[in-house]
């Protein structure tokens, strides 16, 4: 799994924390990708951090639950946990509803 980059200066900067390529992690990435494509096409960037490889990074964003998605941009920083299978909640958590409504 590699960080998906759309553009150098993305409007939406998302960071997905995982710990190894577990089913939950894979599902989370797939769900996130889908939601982003649907709502933020071309305006987002996803960075995936595998804590098994970089455990020291867990402290910075206060990661506890896996998977955790952190919205770094736009501010304020938002954090949602879980495999992102509940799309409605993801939209709420990322404050994407307004964007989604506008898009539709």
């Amino acid at each position, binding site marked *: 799994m590699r960080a998906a980059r759309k553009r150098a200066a993305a409007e939406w900067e998302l960071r997905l924390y995982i710990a190894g390529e577990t089913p939950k992690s894979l599902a989370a990435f797939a769900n996130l990708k889908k939601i982003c494509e649907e709502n933020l096409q071309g305006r987002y960037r996803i960075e995936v951090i595998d*804590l098994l490889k970089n455990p020291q990074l*867990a402290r910075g964003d*206060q990661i506890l639950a*896996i*998977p955790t998605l952190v919205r770094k941009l736009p501010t304020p920083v938002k954090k*949602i946990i*879980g495999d*992102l299978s509940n799309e409605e909640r993801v939209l709420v958590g990322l404050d994407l509803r307004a964007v989604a409504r506008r898009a539709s």
Partner: protein
Amino acid sequence: MSARVKRNGRGNRSARVVPLRRGPEGLQKAPSGIQGLDEITDGGLPRGRPTLVCGGPGCGKTLFALEFLVRGATAHGEPGVFVSFEESEPEIATNVASLGFDVRRLQAEKKLSVDWVRVERSEIEDTGEYDLEGLFVRLDHAVKSVGAKRVALDTIESLFSALPNPLVLRSELRRLFRWLKDRGLTAVITGERGEETLTRQGLEEYVSDCVIFLDHRVTEQVSTRRLRVVKYRGSTHGTNEYPFLIDEEGISVLPITSIGLDHRASRERITTGIERLDEMLGGKGYYRGSTVLVSGTAGTGKTSVAASLARSTCENGERCLYYAFEESAAQLTRNMRSIGVDLERQLKRGTLRLVAVRPNSQGVEMHLLSIHKAVKAFDPSIVILDPITNLTANGTTLDARLMLTRLIDLLKSRGVTALFTSLTTGTTDLEETDVAVSSLIDTWLLLEIVRSGGERNRALTIIKSRGMEHSNQSAEYRLSRRGLEILDTYLGPSGVLTGSARLAREAEDRAGALLREENAARQRALRETRRKAFERRLETLRAEFEVEDAEIERAIREDAERGEVVASDRLRMAKSRQAFSGRDARKDGIR
């Protein structure tokens, strides 16, 4: 509690790992390094297993967890990881700096790792399945970074309010404790006290090897901290509630009340500082390591007896720890100077330590603990508590009695002589102390006021003194500039006399003796006169006799001479007549 468990955590080189202790079933123990706790738990916390430390807010859980790690890192060569769910890293470092724990230095030396896990419910949206692998990753990373043997989680329960799904959390906690055990980490998990359960979230369900309960109770406005080992699987442990103290050296638990009475008894005697009192106590004074009680009503000089002992001990170069519960240090030294007991010099020399505290400043257990610590640090040969009466003011008599029992135990085990003073009020029996400790006392001096003839005089009686001959005499004493002086006893026909009655009686006696002496002298003079008169008369009689004797002698001589004259006259007449009858004539003359 066994005697073989010794104090850990003092002066051990940090590089060396303390040998493992084994319980009866081979359970290994990790010394907590917390003063007194290892005695209660017979060696420490279960090694490689989690221990739950629970209690209400402010009971000292966090400090317990932190001290466990700090002592492990500094004294037992076991680095640790502190995972805080409540306080941030800088907060922790600041909070415990006052206790002498240099968290930052330990972090820099890679002996301690502190991780602050902050979870805000508001910024977490649950969007599907998740687990707490992040926590495991962080913990694992921290453990590896310092080579930790110990872990503390403080307070993991706060996750319950932060994470939306308690079911996930519970299963993850179970996994976490398993994880800790698998890695052989000795862990301390703290938990907030629940309504009916030990912890609010029932952590005891997961951590069942060892549970320690901390309590912070306030009784009659005085707070006391207590610790209890609720359970300890596979090990013996003290089950009582033990008071503990948090001060500048961290936590100290007092594993008081040794079950056995196995103090060594010294035969050595020490002076009381009052010469005649020594005499009354078999001529030598108190036994070293004994417990002395000085009881009496107000103004009988209890403190003076105590101060006399303090001074004489210090003058012998030994140390004395003096707890003044009623007077300030300055007041005490001034007052004692008035009876010629100079405590100031001993204070300056450092042989005497005066601790003036209000008895109600803290609970009796806390007093006991601070005395315990002071005794350990100062190592005195005498400890004086003046007076013990006020200790009951902030606790029940039972509390005070228990405390004194524990204190006496402690002092006896160290061979320290203890002197307590006790104020007896007018209403209670003189031979009874409010604290009812008399049975624990080896030597009991009663100071009382004897009222008679419009004055109050002081008398000292030895009620008991175990193991020595002692005077039965109630002795009068006086407090003067020369100190406490025991006076000669006057035993009159109606008992012991004191004060002016004694003086009067003594004067009377002196007068009587004088009278008798004069009488005898007079008699002697009379006899002399009579003897002289007799001798004079004898002289006269002898003189008269001699005179008469001389007279008689002369008469005899004259008679004889006269006879011769007659005879010679006749002879001469016969011659002149030329008669032959001269022979006849001579005969006549002779006749």
